[in-house]
């Protein structure tokens, strides 16, 4: 069982809040959830929507349709009427509103949607859009928002303009009824969400009124939960992982969709630690003047012995290129958490993307060990954040941790135990010296030199080629020695890190889907179906050092190799070919700024196996 619920509305008018309340109510009823937020790079007024997929089994992705669409204003109806399957909740008093009156709607979308209606002989009105949905089998439920608003205003004794705000909670109340779930979870969530007693009363009332107004369509029952579950979005998962991994310094410059991670860390302030003398630590979070400062501050902090990271998105990462090179040259353990969004340039700041892999792998001029990992879901994001910090310190080199807006701004409800376990910390060759001066860059067999904190002995660093002491030298023999020493670290890492840890394999079969990042979740959600078709899936989790041998083995003899990625070039596949010589036979790609959905995975794979060499997916408003 898997139900997709979608609520929309203008940015800044409570869509998020209502989706949260809905999620909490459903989670409290024992359901697993995957939720995703889509919004414009805008503060108020543009259409944003929240899709929540609930299930009695763990769920990891969204779908390209809405079983239940919830609208309290016209644009949501216009944007989504063609996605509804089962139920659409709308405001009948707005039935006559037509597309041209919705100024916030982009001309491209207005035109596209009007045409859709026109093709069916319908006019571009709310009424006709609902008709469209009903014709396709959906049940239309008109919710009398106005009467609810009026009642709330009366009962709680507030002006109507204030009571207007309850519409979205009303929508949630109605949704619960449609699902057949009790309303208590929602009322509890409302009590937790609002501090103000008045708001609690207003919203509880609205929820109840709406609940009573609509029929049940589904017949869901509250489920047992065996162990505690948590609500985890991607930004928080990474922040928590970093804390568990001993992060003590984070610099950042605000950018979507990375900033929330830093904001979370900043709020933590003092940290409890299991240490004898002074029990409490703290993570310093610095909002910098730009991303050039962010990466270089983090490197500076790392030189003192603090575990340090920065977090950014494409434009910021572009600005960090030079600093990452310095960190590579100076063997600085620094982590760059990199949330991909719509690119190139400013691109689509609030939409997802998966097109920065090769930039991450090759960032900055020259050669040095760049370690690049890419997480596939929220749980992986948490553990990878710890892993990244350990890799950085063990191999003394920048580690780039790739994620996507799709993970950052989506959330799962899943077992808390997924985030518990042994948090291993590997500080590598961090030592306490006894001498006045310390040769920081000693040549060793594995390429890794003993490392000291600034302040423990006189050490030198330089972005210029340097000798073992960190002093500049241009001698050609030293150049070669130090160059090889640095590059050897990547070979060491390649030897030490089990390739099995760098790849996730799902199922078995003659056909392989090769993917990375968020798409993992979409695959997991249709794995049974894929398996039934003889399709297995391979998710690359570490791109550098690349799991060359294992990948060769896995790809060998496959009847089809389908590259499934959120970009145009199939960058993951390009790296695969570079490393293994193997080309994909098919491509299933998506680059319209929206998440790859689980049903699209099925569609793509099926079309590919029917012979389409390149399938381009395009679901999502």
């Amino acid at each position, binding site marked *: 069982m898997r139900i997709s619920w979608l609520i929309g509305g203008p940015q800044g008018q409570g869509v998020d809040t209502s989706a949260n309340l809905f999620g909490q109510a459903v989670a409290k009823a024992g359901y697993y959830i995957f939720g995703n937020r889509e919004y414009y790079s805008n503060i108020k007024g543009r259409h944003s929507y929240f899709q929540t997929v609930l299930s009695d089994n763990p769920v990891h992705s969204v779908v390209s349709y809405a079983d239940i669409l919830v609208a309290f204003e016209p644009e949501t109806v216009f944007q989504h009427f063609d996605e509804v399957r089962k139920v659409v909740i709308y405001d009948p008093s707005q039935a006559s509103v037509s597309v041209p009156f919705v100024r916030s709607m982009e001309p491209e979308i207005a035109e596209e949607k009007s045409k859709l209606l026109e093709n069916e002989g319908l006019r571009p009105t709310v009424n006709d859009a609902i008709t469209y949905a009903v014709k396709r089998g959906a049940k239309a439920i008109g919710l009398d928002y106005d009467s609810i608003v009026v009642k709330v205003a009366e009962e709680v004794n507030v002006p109507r303009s204030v009571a207007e705000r309850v519409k979205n909670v009303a929508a949630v109340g109605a949704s619960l009824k449609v699902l057949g779930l009790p309303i208590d979870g929602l009322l509890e969530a409302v009590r937790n969400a609002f501090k103000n007693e008045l708001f609690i009363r207003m919203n509880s009332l609205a929820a109840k009124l709406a609940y009573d107004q609509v029929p049940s369509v589904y017949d869901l029952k509250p489920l047992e939960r065996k162990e505690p579950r948590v609500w985890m979005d991607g930004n928080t998962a990474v922040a928590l992982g970093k804390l568990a991994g001993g992060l003590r310094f984070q610099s950042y410059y605000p950018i979507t969709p990375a900033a929330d991670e830093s904001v979370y860390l900043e709020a933590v302030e003092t940290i409890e630690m299991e240490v004898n003398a002074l029990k*409490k630590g703290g993570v310093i979070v610095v909002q910098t003047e730009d991303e050039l*400062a962010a990466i270089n501050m983090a490197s500076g902090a790392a030189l003192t012995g603090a575990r*340090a990271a920065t977090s950014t998105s494409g434009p910021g990462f572009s600005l960090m290129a030079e600093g990452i090179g310095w960190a590579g040259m100076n063997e600085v353990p620094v982590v760059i958490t990199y949330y991909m969004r719509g690119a190139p340039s400013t691109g689509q700041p609030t939409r997802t993307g998966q097109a920065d892999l090769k930039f991450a792998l090759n960032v900055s001029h020259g050669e040095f060990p760049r370690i690049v990992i890419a997480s596939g879901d929220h749980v992986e994001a948490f553990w990878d954040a710890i892993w990244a910090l350990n890799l950085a310190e063990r191999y003394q080199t920048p580690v780039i941790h790739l994620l996507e807006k799709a993970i950052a701004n989506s959330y799962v409800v899943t077992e808390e135990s997924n985030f518990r376990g042994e948090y291993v910390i590997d500080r590598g060759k961090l030592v306490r010296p006894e001498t006045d001066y310390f040769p920081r860059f000693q040549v060793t067999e594995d390429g890794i030199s003993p490392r000291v904190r600034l302040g423990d002995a006189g050490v030198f660093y330089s972005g210029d080629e340097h000798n073992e002491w960190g002093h500049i030298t241009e001698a050609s023999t030293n150049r070669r020695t130090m160059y090889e020493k640095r590059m050897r670290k990547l070979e060491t890492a390649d030897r030490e890190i089990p390739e099995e840890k760098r790849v996730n394999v799902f199922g078995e079969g003659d056909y392989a889907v090769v993917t990375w990042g968020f798409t993992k979740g979409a695959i997991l959600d249709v794995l049974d179906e894929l398996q039934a078709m003889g399709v297995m899936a391979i998710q690359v989790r570490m791109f550098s050092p690349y799991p060359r041998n294992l990948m060769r083995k896995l790809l060998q003899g496959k009847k089809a190799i389908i590259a499934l990625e959120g970009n145009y070039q199939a960058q993951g596949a390009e790296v695969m070919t570079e490393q293994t010589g193997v080309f994909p036979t098919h491509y299933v790609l998506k680059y319209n700024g929206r998440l790859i959905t689980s049903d699209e995975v099925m569609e793509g794979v099926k079309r590919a196996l029917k012979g389409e060499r390149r399938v381009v997916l395009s679901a999502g408003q």
Partner: protein
Amino acid sequence: MQASEVKTHKPVWSDWCPGCGNFGILRAEELAIRELGLDPKSVVVVSGIGCSGKLPHFMNVPINGVHTLHGRALAFATGIKLANPKLKVIVNAGDGDALGIGMGHFVHAGRRNIDMVLIVHDNGVYALTKGQASPTLRKGIKTKSLPKPNVNEAVNPLAVAIASGYTFVARGYAYDVNHLKELMKRALNHRGMALIDVLQPCPTYNDVNTKEFYDKRVYKLEEQKDWDPVVRKPEEVQEKALKAIMKSFEWGERIPIGLFYQNTLEETYEDRIAKYIENYFDYPPALQEIEKDGKSTTLMDKLLKTRRI
């Protein structure tokens, strides 16, 4: 041949040109560190890229040297200082470095008022790239390395520093090592962001702002009877800042060196952090024992529980 076979630290040959003003800055800096009795190991000299940027490598005391990127020295220094406020951080940067490509960080460092010292090697040229005009070279001046007179107006580093929040603003002269050393000591003793703009002749590329040029113009503010640049009461801030700015525009037959402005009242960025993070000064990020027996010491239980649903 590997240094590993040697394993004793050799002083590095200072490859500056004969007569370069940088020698004076190096000397004054070494002396200031010694005379203040600082533990060299706890001193971190951060530098940018340029002739000036090589300075930490040339120091004859076992300080820490971090030779960074062109224009970014302040950013590295900020990370170092905030992660371990116990360290003494000095930044040496060229004028192109600090005021050209690094101007953004220069201004924002003032806004933070971190307890560090920035020493600008003000030679009017991009020396290491063969003498192009730096941001402190005045408009219309043609040094021998320029094909035509400089087309840009100069920045006034002192005025910009004061307008940006630096709480210690001074100018030194590379050939007056003693005076410069004393300025450095005062700056190192100041709690907050300090700037010393050092007039640093570059005999190779700048044949205008030479030793001769400065020797006859430079005079010491300390020797002016009525010059009191130190803010001791909140009401004085604006007045003293404006006076200092006015003074900083004096350039011509007479060029003042010395302390232009010092505000001892402003809290540092570190103080502001310490309001939110207990033990910040005693147990800073750099020194926290995050690991024990290979495992994290950070307690995650409470944090995870807040996410429960």
